[in-house]
């Protein structure tokens, strides 16, 4: 993908808060990122890190109340998605922005045939008639590798296996030639051999259709195999952002570093003992004023108790929200307290 291309999606300072009876939960805090045409952006983080909520906020899929997008702009195709009216949003969702959810069983409607579910966006967004929509649906099912597509069109979701259902979900998301595809943990519910099939399919479709993809996952292995750039989220914030090779070769944020050492691998050296990250993820009860990882960080320094780190550039497209990456702080001083 060309480096200089204008972003197809540009998110700035997004902030989402849930109002609950127990008080506010600050799920997404000042998240900014952009997506270039044709690029695959990986979003990694553990549960509760705000990765799904961020993407749901973009396309207005969070129920409000309790959710409230407090701040930010989401520029897509000349519109700020946070300020468009409901009708325009409906046009964009499932039209220019497609999405694939984690669990293909609960996100397909069990009482309609998959043919009807694929045809629905085609008729709504593209104004196709029944016959044209059906023909296109067959094409789409073939595209995602479902054998005997013509006949399978009249089957119901329960007649498909998990991997096949996820293929149907992808077919629906691709129906209207989206510019952006948001995939929220699309392979988490699948077995590894089926996951490998879906990953291959996604790589192939991306080159064929040239759309930009946001791929949310908690699996760093999946990210390593598929993404161009990666953002790492923790406690509702982006803590590191880098091209995929840089992230694995030279992680800057202590959380990313720790995360990479906690996961064992099927090849390579087997460590005698797993490295652990002590403690628990933060509870996001208030707007953060300090680094969310500081309580679990083994490189905490004095300044971490006073100020919130910014996202400091490390190199070209690589930045990290950690004082250790801040060029303004002398390295010896920062490393001096490391424990």
């Amino acid at each position, binding site marked *: 993908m060309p480096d200089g291309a204008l972003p197809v999606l540009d998110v700035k300072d997004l902030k989402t808060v849930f109002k609950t009876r127990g008080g506010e939960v600050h799920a997404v805090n000042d998240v900014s990122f952009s997506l270039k045409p044709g690029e695959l952006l990986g979003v990694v983080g*553990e*549960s509760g890190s705000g990765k799904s909520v961020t993407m749901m906020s973009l396309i207005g899929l969070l129920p409000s109340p309790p959710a409230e997008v407090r701040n930010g702009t989401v520029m897509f195709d000349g519109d700020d998605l946070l300020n468009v009216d409901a009708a325009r949003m409906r046009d964009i969702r499932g039209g220019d922005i497609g999405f694939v959810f984690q669990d293909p069983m609960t996100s397909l409607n069990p009482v309609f045939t998959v043919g009807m579910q694929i045809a629905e966006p085609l008729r709504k967004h593209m104004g196709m008639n029944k016959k044209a929509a059906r023909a296109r649906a067959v094409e789409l099912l073939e595209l995602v590798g479902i054998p005997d597509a013509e006949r399978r069109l009249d089957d119901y979701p329960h007649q498909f*296996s998990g*991997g*096949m259902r996820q293929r149907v979900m992808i077919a629906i998301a691709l129906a209207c030639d989206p510019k952006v595809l948001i995939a929220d943990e699309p392979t988490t519910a699948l*077995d*590894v*051999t*089926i*996951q*490998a*099939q879906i*990953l*291959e399919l996604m790589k192939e479709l991306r080159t064929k259709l040239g759309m930009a993809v946001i791929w949310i996952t*908690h*699996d*760093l*292995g*999946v*990210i*390593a*195999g598929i993404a161009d750039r990666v953002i790492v989220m923790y406690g509702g914030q982006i803590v590191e952002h880098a091209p*995929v*090779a840089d992230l*694995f*070769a030279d992680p800057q944020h202590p959380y990313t570093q*720790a*995360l*990479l050492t*906690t*996961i*064992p*691998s*099927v*090849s*390579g050296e*087997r*460590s005698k*003992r*797993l*490295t*652990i*990250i*002590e403690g*628990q*993820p933060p509870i996001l009860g208030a707007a953060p004023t300090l680094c969310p990882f500081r309580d679990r960080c083994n490189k905490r320094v004095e300044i971490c108790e006073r100020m919130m780190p910014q996202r400091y550039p490390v190199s070209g497209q690589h930045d990290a929200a950690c004082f250790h990456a801040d060029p303004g702080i002398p390295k010896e001083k920062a490393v001096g307290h490391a424990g």
Partner: protein
Amino acid sequence: MLDDTNAKPLVSVRDLKMHFPIHAGLLRRRVGEVKAVDGVSFDVMEGETLGLVGESGCGKSTCGRAVLRLYDITAGEISIDGVEIGQMDQSRLRSKRPTMQMVFQDPQASLNPRMPVRDIIQEPLDEHTNLSLSEKREKVLELMDAVGLNRKFATRFPHAFSGGQRQRIGIARALALNPKFIVCDEPIAALDVSIQAQVVNLLEDLQEKLGLTYLFISHDLSMVRHIATRVAVMYLGRIVELAPREALYAEPLHPYTKALLSAVPEPNPALAQKQRVVLTGDVPSPSNPPKGCNFCTRCPVVQDICRTDDPETREVQPGRFVACHFVTPETTTTADPTAGPRSQELNQQGEET
């Protein structure tokens, strides 16, 4: 850990079968059966961790539960610590429970939300020992220390704990009766990666301290590589390969194991340049397994014999068992394991990535 030369089996399973009936129609007639576990044999040596891996629906959890006789098994022999429990009735089985315990997958669902943690951990002591209340309370606190839970939280309810802490409660409960053998059924599947490592390290520490023997059921091949001494790979109710950890991961022999290992996404891009075997199709239904080898519908190197004859499990190298027509002691004794005609064939047929 295990000195494998003079290890003796603590658990011996022979030809274990667990079939669940399918009833249908107005009269709920028995129309078939789901062969969840269909003739599985393995030993778990004293002090070792046997990893049991496979994809969902392959019967690994059913196998783990059947070994502890949480089901009335269809056929087979299970001997734990020298006692045959395969056909033992449930009331006699009860007195054997203290030696064998289980840690369940979902710590949310396996803890009673209305019981404080203290009572949850104490329950096995109430059932199986004659200790006084104060002795039991003391034992509970010791167990909480052992699994790294703060004693102060003894009177709290499960909802007040995080996922990793809840799994620690489940482990404490399993340890209460000083068991020898613990079946861990996907104990880390519901946890985040940073918490998974904490629980796995705890299980390893406890094993070392208490001399425990684990059957560790998981679909996470990289975690099994970390924790297991030997690994059994299940597919559609059968064990297709059983081998010491290093040997299995270095050179998988069964075509399914090869595909399974190559499908695991590699988080280290430097190591990710391997060829990938992508299987086509899905796992057949265990109520209607294919004739011949169970894997013949997806196997990249399938031959005619695979569709008619069921391969027997053979010991192809000392300690390595494989159920495949084409993996024999002769094919695996070559100095360079990748030089065999068979593995070349497999690599060519697998899709490259």
